[in-house]
């Protein structure tokens, strides 16, 4: 059923077995997955079915660290959430991404890839892709295309593109038609209220911008509002506990991670006319059984190579061969600039874009700012930090890729480098907000446990990329959906 919260009587109390806050990829996935279980579900969505400026402006905030896209631009606050403008890039995290790596401080999820794999297979269908095949060798062989290979340090990863699936429009009707699911539009959570025991939630205080106030009471709650809004809601719910909800160890909002993007930064001067077709975006291979899907290969280093050097995960996409002069950034005249500026000297060259994992850093964080939104809720102050070690690591990683390419006789790699040997290029964000309610086995090291349940609050769950312990280097949506499917199974089991 669909309910416009603006039409509720002021003071209404909504009751359900399960309340899901947020109708983005995670929230919609959980609601869909629990249909038919007998659970009554209330989905609380701030927006309507389309973009509306006054609702969207609730997402505004201030950046005090690395400047990134404005927070009311990079994400969308209406039914379907940020899938309303995502690009569809899909790849699962790798096995090592879940493991504790000695060289990545604060790494190590309490779950492994094996546990998530069946849910990745489901997620694959939710984003309208086919087989869960991400083995680049298998796909390259099927396509009859070569991979860039050398001594074993290089690794090609396969990226699949969802059409992309707009979760709002794609799954709206299924939820609206379901008798056990009530979707409340224009409904904003202002406060998460605890029982007097402070170890479980009592209810949610909600309101519409039009002035209707109401309450939601449920047996269990899932916060699924994204990597910035999840911590904001928890931190801002500080009437009973000054540190906010689920924040007994001060971890809510910390460890904010992005995927630093160094777009068109490195350059590959080609030698020997290598066949790079596998690394171009193109229709998905037949073996993927995804008629609407596309795919492309990404270059990176093998696990052993990264472990040997203590490097984070990163990938390189092979881009334009004819970068215009204005795109050459800080490459000094006389280097690549001269190539593109003087056609007579043009040498085959590809631009490389780097997308990297960043080391989880407690000082990279979301805080409450001093400004407030139309409800009087403090807006976000985002302090995104990348450590200097990350900058060195990325430079070194690309250098290793360059050595492998050169060893294979395929040319040379150029990377923007500062005087100390770190990468020198403006890191752009991917709009991937991760880590702010991180998953941990030890309550002192995170906000939620392996089942995405808050360590401090027994009937509160968190969904979405805010629970990522580490982010890998790949786009998070497929993992968000896989984790949501897994959480739905858990909620069904304990109901």
């Amino acid at each position, binding site marked *: 059923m669909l309910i416009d919260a603006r039409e509720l009587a002021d003071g209404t109390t909504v009751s359900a077995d399960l309340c899901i806050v947020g109708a983005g990829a995670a929230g919609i996935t959980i609601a869909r997955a629990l249909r038919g279980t007998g659970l009554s579900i209330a989905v609380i969505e701030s927006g309507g079915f389309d973009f509306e400026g006054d609702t969207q402006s609730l997402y505004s905030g201030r950046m005090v660290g690395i400047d990134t896209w404005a927070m009311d631009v990079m994400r969308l606050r209406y039914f379907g959430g940020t899938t309303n403008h995502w690009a569809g890039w899909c790849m699962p995290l790798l096995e090592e991404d879940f493991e504790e790596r000695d060289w990545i401080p604060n790494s190590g999820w309490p779950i492994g890839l094996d546990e998530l794999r069946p849910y990745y297979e489901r997620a694959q269908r939710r984003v309208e892709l086919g087989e869960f095949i991400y083995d680049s060798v298998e796909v390259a062989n099927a396509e009859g295309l070569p991979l860039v290979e050398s001594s074993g340090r290089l690794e090609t990863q396969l990226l699949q593109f969802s059409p992309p699936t707009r979760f709002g429009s794609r799954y709206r009707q299924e939820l609206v038609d379901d008798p056990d699911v009530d979707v409340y539009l224009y409904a904003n959570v202002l406060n998460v209220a605890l029982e007097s025991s402070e170890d479980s939630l009592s209810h949610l205080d909600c309101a519409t911008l039009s002035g209707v106030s109401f309450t939601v009471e449920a047996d269990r709650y899932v916060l699924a509002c994204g990597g910035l809004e999840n911590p904001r809601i928890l931190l801002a719910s500080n009437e009973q506990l000054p540190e906010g909800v689920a924040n007994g160890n001060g971890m809510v909002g910390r460890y904010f991670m992005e995927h630093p993007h160094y777009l068109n930064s490195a350059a590959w*001067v080609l030698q020997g006319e290598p066949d790079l077709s596998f690394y171009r975006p193109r229709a998905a291979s037949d073996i993927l059984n995804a008629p609407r899907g596309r795919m492309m290969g990404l270059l990176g280093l093998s696990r052993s190579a990264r472990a040997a050097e203590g490097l984070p995960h990163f990938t390189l996409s092979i881009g334009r061969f004819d970068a215009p002069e204005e795109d050459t950034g800080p490459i000094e005249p006389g*280097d690549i600039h001269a190539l593109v500026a003087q056609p007579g000297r043009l040498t085959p060259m590809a631009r490389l874009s780097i997308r990297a994992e960043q080391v989880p850093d407690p000082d990279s964080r979301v805080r409450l700012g001093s400004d407030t939104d139309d409800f009087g809720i403090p807006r976000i102050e985002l302090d995104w930090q990348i450590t200097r070690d990350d900058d060195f690591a990325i430079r070194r990683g690309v250098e290793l890729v360059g050595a492998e390419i050169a060893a294979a006789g395929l040319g040379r790699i150029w990377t923007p480098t500062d005087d100390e040997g770190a990468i020198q290029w403006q890191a752009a964000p991917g709009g991937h907000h991760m880590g702010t309610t991180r998953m941990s086995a030890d309550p002192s090291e995170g906000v939620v446990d392996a089942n995405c349940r808050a360590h401090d609050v027994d009937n509160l769950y968190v969904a979405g990329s805010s629970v990522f312990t580490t982010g890998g280097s790949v786009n998070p949506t497929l993992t968000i959906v896989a984790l949501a499917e897994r959480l739905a199974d858990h909620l069904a089991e304990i109901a």
Partner: protein
Amino acid sequence: MSATPRCQRRDFLRYAAAQVISLPLLQTMGCGSDDGLQATQEWLDARPRVDTYFADARQSLGDDRVLDAAERIGREYIDVRVVPVRQSAVEELLTPVTALINEAASDEEAVAELRALVGEDFRDLQVVDVRGWTLSETEAQVAALVWLTS
């Protein structure tokens, strides 16, 4: 390659610049000139085979762009590897490459050995960052010889 010694020397330089160092790389590097290391050049002058290779070949190339780029790489490589620049340190750095060239039975053998060393460098991660380029130590040393004999 030509059978005549002079042509071999010319071919050697072209080969060194275009294959050992990587022609596409050289083509991306702008022209440059700088003061040489006089003392080191004198040291190299005492090694006639190396000096002759580069001097003869330099004159033989109508387009100096490739050699200019090699010189630039070589100059900056020395700046990276020898701080502060001292003759003895430069000698020590370049001795293996000069010895290889001088002791090779033929130009072809020298080129083949240099190319093999470049490949080994990349596989063994014996690499150096020169203005953001990831280069093999050997190819950068060849470039340094080009610069020092210019």
